[in-house]
């Protein structure tokens, strides 16, 4: 098997994933360098969430290999897998909060269960992380069902960053937030990066993408069709990227809609 790139934190090589006859990922090659922030853009339903889930082992790729810190990870299980997962924080697209637990326990969950931090200390950290996403102590004791969609998203974000993981995946962190709160979240993501965290974000929000990323990759029809530094995105010379960032209905990307 091919060797992983030395400096890469996360590397995907020829990752393929299909559901039944439907090919979602068709040979993804993608590298995220240590300490880098990469944003993946692409149309709805192109497999961005599926790609992240493959890295975390929630879905198993049909082909290809994924390396984290140079180690192949697609076949990890048991304690090794738990240790591997402790490197990650993940914000799910739908927040995926535990509705049987109050907000603060959601945020503290990875600390208490995954890392054995004692409850009092974990609670303190949870309140602090909630404050960072703009949620006060009165929210901490509510149940997730009592929150608005945007608030749930922010709790999910607080949960993802609570344990100061090495690698954070953000699946649409600013979707459903107002522009001001989006900017607060963007700043927060930029700040977590200052600590050397590696980040992979998915977003449709190009303002956010420009602000939080060092590099951008575009996913289309199961492949990475373009990747490059963020500042080059306006001059990519790539018809797919141009169409996407200008939001035009006409172009090489054909939405599957019938008029």
């Amino acid at each position: 098997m091919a060797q992983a790139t030395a400096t890469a934190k996360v590397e995907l090589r020829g990752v393929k994933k299909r559901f039944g006859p439907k090919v979602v990922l068709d040979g993804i090659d993608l590298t995220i360098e240590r300490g880098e922030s990469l944003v993946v853009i692409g149309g709805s339903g192109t497999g961005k969430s599926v790609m992240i889930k493959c890295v975390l082992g929630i879905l198993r790729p049909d082909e290809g290999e994924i390396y984290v810190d140079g180690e192949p990870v697609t076949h990890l299980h048991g304690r090794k897998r738990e240790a591997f997962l402790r490197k990650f924080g993940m914000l799910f697209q739908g927040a995926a909060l535990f509705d049987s637990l109050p907000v603060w326990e959601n945020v503290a969950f990875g600390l208490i269960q995954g890392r054995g931090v004692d409850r009092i200390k974990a609670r303190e950290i949870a309140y602090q992380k909630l404050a960072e996403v703009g949620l006060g102590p009165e929210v901490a004791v509510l149940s997730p069902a009592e929150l608005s969609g945007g608030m749930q998203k922010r709790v999910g974000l607080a949960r993802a960053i609570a344990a100061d993981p090495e690698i954070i995946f953000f699946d649409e962190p600013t979707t459903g937030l107002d522009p001001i709160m989006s900017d607060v979240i963007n700043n927060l993501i930029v700040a977590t990066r200052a600590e050397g965290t590696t980040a992979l974000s998915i977003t449709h929000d190009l303002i956010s993408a420009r602000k939080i990323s060092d590099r951008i990759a575009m996913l289309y029809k199961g492949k990475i069709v373009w990747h490059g530094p963020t500042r080059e995105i306006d001059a990519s010379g790539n018809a797919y990227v141009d169409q996407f960032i200008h939001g035009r209905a006409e172009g090489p990307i054909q939405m599957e809609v019938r008029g």
Partner: protein
Amino acid sequence: MNFLASIGRMTLDFLRSVGALFVFLGDAVVSIFLPPFYWSLLGKQLMRIGYFSLPVVGLTGFFTGGALALQIYSGAARYGAEAFVPAVVMIGICRELGPVIAGLMVAGRAAAAIAAELGTMKVTEQIDALTTLATNPVKYLVVPRLVAAVISMPLLVAVADSVGVFGGYIVSTGTLGFTGSIYIKNTVDAIAFNDVSSGLTKAAVFGFIIAAMGCYHGFHSKGGAQGVGAATTSAVVTSSILILAANYILTKLLFE
């Protein structure tokens, strides 16, 4: 040809599900003995599966005991064997009806609740979220439910047995003309260790079936609300069928 192909496909699908079920259960059973142990979650499940099933199990046990007394009496009267009513009611309740009725009632309550809860967690990605927080969902969600059901069921059946025999007593003394003290004496004289222990053994097995089916169908539900609904139905139906099948097998093993 098409017909044969679809039979083949169904057979393969069936075998695949059975295989998946055994892998799932094997994982769950092994996980019971591996740390970490979530004691507080176990306590919570004991309350939900055990304690809150008490009223249902008690009521159904009572009426079953009463009805059984009436039937046994009318049957025994044909042979002038009314004196055996207390013994036969006790045997019927402890060996068969107590465990089976309690099993089916708890299947309706707990297997459905487990499947619905875990199914919702599955479709809203909460189970995936658990994994990413370095927590094993089988240990965190399945083990407490499995252990709680295996502990609760024998206790619930002990209650069902007592209340069932009591139901027989009330009906017999109230409408069939038995004297209370004689009824009790006949029951106590007839009771054998095996009558009760066999029922409690069955109960533990039924508890395992209930939690296993609830968890399995919950974990494997797909789609949205409809998928969770289907998982709930499957959990109740399969656990009920398996309880009755297991009851037959256990009866054969325990009494031959």
